């Protein structure tokens, strides 16, 4: 009984340290998206490079594709961009951009300068499609399956590690 007096505070302390240690590793900016496992929201947006051509959600059904949200004003997108360009060269999956709250000329100039990994970029000038996708921190990346269901979401830049350990295996699973 006497021992408990010393062990109990120690046990509480250890539990508290455990909670804090886990808390330190969590990134409060990464909010789990409620959209994973749900059908992607409907959209119909003009292409960034051609205002006359519209891409809709229905056009994308039947293939596993990546939607990468980017903007010319977004600094982290610049860090991410070379990895996307490299991944696009492997031609493993179609990559579409969502040019979020940008100016058409700025977006096009940015792609001309840093390279264009996208099959096409959708031009979401007022950010409404972004809201439907729950976008809050550009860049964000979604993987959408053949049925149009969102299977994966990355908030913040995609890294080569994430591509190799998360996206490529998921792609194999969804195509297999």
């Amino acid at each position, binding site marked *: 009984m006497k021992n408990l007096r010393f062990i109990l505070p120690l046990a509480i302390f250890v539990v508290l340290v455990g909670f804090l240690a886990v808390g330190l590793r969590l990134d409060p900016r990464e*909010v789990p*998206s*409620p959209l994973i496992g749900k059908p992607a929201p409907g959209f119909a947006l003009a292409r960034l490079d051609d205002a006359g051509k519209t891409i809709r959600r229905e056009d994308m059904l039947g293939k596993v594709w990546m939607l990468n949200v980017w903007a010319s004003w977004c600094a982290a997108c610049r860090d991410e961009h070379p990895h996307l360009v490299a991944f696009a060269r492997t031609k493993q999956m179609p990559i579409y951009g969502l040019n979020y*709250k940008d100016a058409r000329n700025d977006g096009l100039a940015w792609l001309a300068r840093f390279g264009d990994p996208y099959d096409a970029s959708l031009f979401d000038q007022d*950010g*409404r499609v972004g*809201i439907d996708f*729950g976008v*809050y*921190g550009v860049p964000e990346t979604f993987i959408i399956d053949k049925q149009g269901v969102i299977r994966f979401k990355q908030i913040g830049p995609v890294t080569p590690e994430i591509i190799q350990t998360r996206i490529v295996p998921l792609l194999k699973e969804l195509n297999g």
Partner: protein
Amino acid sequence: MARWCLLLCILVSMAVTAKEAVPAAPDPVLEARMQSIAAELRCLVCQNQTIADSHSGLAEDLRREVRDQLRRGASDEQVVQYMTDRYGDFVRYRPPFKASTLVLWVGPVLLLVAGLAILAIVLRRRTKLAADQFEPDEGEWVDEATELKAGERKS
């Protein structure tokens, strides 16, 4: 005369600024509803602010979205549901009561009850102890006072 002129100038300028302070939205009732909903929603870009407080681009967009939906006749609950569907329960400053938020809602109450229970047990145990189990109540100042009295008597 110059003084009157100055006063007039000040009054006119005040009237002009007063006009500028009128909110841009034409419908004050709708604006008030929008504000009250926005004050319940977390801005995910700057997580310690509400959408009503934040000046981030996303918060402005979401305020616009709330306003548009209200204008289209959506209820307050529908707007909050719309945001929750896209951004998760985390956007709500008052998360709903369900299995995943059980610890959040019940945890503090449990901790309080546990603390009170421990306090009650300790106090009850102490009332049962004999008086000689406690240290004497005399503090230093008691000793000093008695010494002082003793000194007075001596002189």
